C-alpha cells in the first residue's frame, strides 16, 4: 500500500485488500443505490468514519 502526492493538491492513496474483502466490496458496489464505484465507496467510508472519530475527540 502506498501514497502519492499529485501536483493539484490531490493525494492518491493505494489501498490493498485481500480477495475476501474484494468480494465484500464488490457486493457493496452491486447493491449501492447511488451506483458508486469501489474507490468512491472506500473514500466515502474513510471520510465518514474519520469525521466521526474527529467529532468523538472534540
Amino acid at each position, binding site marked *: 500500500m502506498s501514497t502519492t502526492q499529485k501536483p493539484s493538491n490531490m493525494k*492518491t492513496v493505494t489501498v490493498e485488500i485481500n480477495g475476501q474483502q474484494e468480494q465484500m466490496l464488490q457486493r457493496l458496489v452491486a447493491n449501492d443505490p447511488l451506483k458508486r464505484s469501489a474507490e468512491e465507496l472506500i473514500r466515502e467510508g474513510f471520510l465518514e468514519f474519520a469525521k466521526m472519530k474527529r467529532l468523538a475527540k472534540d
Partner: protein
Amino acid sequence: MGERKQVQQYVLEPTTGKAIPVMRGQVLRIKQVGKGQCLDFNAFNLNDYKEFFHCGRTRHMHGLNPTKGDHLWSAPPRDRIMFTILEDTVGTNDVNYPRCSAFLFEYQFGFEGHPAHSNCHDILAESIREWGLTPDDVHDSFNGFMHTGAREGKLYIDRMVAAEGDYIELLAQIDTLAVPICCGADVFATSNYELKPLEISVFEGSDADHAALVTHKYNHQRSVEEFKVKEIKADRPLRRDADFEADWPWLQAVKARHKRNIVLDDREAKLLEEIKSDPEFFGFTEAEIVRFCFFRWYSSKYMQGPKQLKGV
C-alpha cells in the same frame, strides 16, 4: 401470550437439577419460589448432543446480560438459536461467569474434603447422567437471574434482585434436552448466601408463542452432514491420522491482493493528516488508515447483528 397447556412441572430442591426434553415450540418457565435463587442452565440438541448451548456466541450476539427478546445460541459451527427468551421479569441474566465447580470452592474457599461443596458443574453432571452424558459434556451455563456486570475490565457479581414469583420463559426453537439446576454457590452473592428451590414448568406453546419461532436457515449454520468427520470418537486417546491433508478452501482468496487507488482532494487529505495524529493509528501508513476507516464505516453501516465498535 394466550392459553398454554402445561405439560410438566417440577420443583427443584436447592442444589439439584433435572434434564427435561423441551421440544420446538414448547415453553420452559423457570420461576422463583423463594427470595431469589440463581439458575444455571445447560441445553443440548435432543437429537445430537454434540450441539449444545454456547455462552460465547450468545454473549457476542446479545452482550453480557441477555434478556427478553434475546436468544440462547448453540456453539459454532452449528450457530443456531436454541431458545428465545420470551419473558424475563427481572432482567439480570449472565453469560460471563463459567459454572462453579468443586475445584473452585476448594481453591478459593478451602473446601477440600469429601463430599465436595455443592457446585453447578457437579449438579449439571448428575442431572445429565440420566441421559447417558458425562461430566465432560457439561458446558458453561446461561446463568438465569444472576446479577453481574463489568467494571474497568473486570467482572463482578452483585446481589440477587429476583423475588418470589419472578420468572424467565424460554421458547425452544429446536428439540432440546434442557437442564435447569439450582446453583450450588452459597459463599458468593449469586443467591444472597441462601440456597433455595426453583419451579420448572413446560408448556405447549400458544399460537402467539409460535409466532416467535425462527424458520430462516443460514448457509453456514453447519450440520453433521457437512463435517468431514461425521462419527463421534468412542475412545479417549487421540491418534493422528497418517493420511491427513489439510484443506483450507479460503486460502487463495486470503492470499490474493487487490489494489484500489483512492483519490483525496486537499480537504480530505488534510483530514487524513489530522487522523494520523490519533494515537489509535500509531504506526499505520496512510493507506492502512484509509482501509481501517473504510471497514469500520462498513461495519457500522452494513454489518448485521451486534456492533461492538470502540472509539466512535
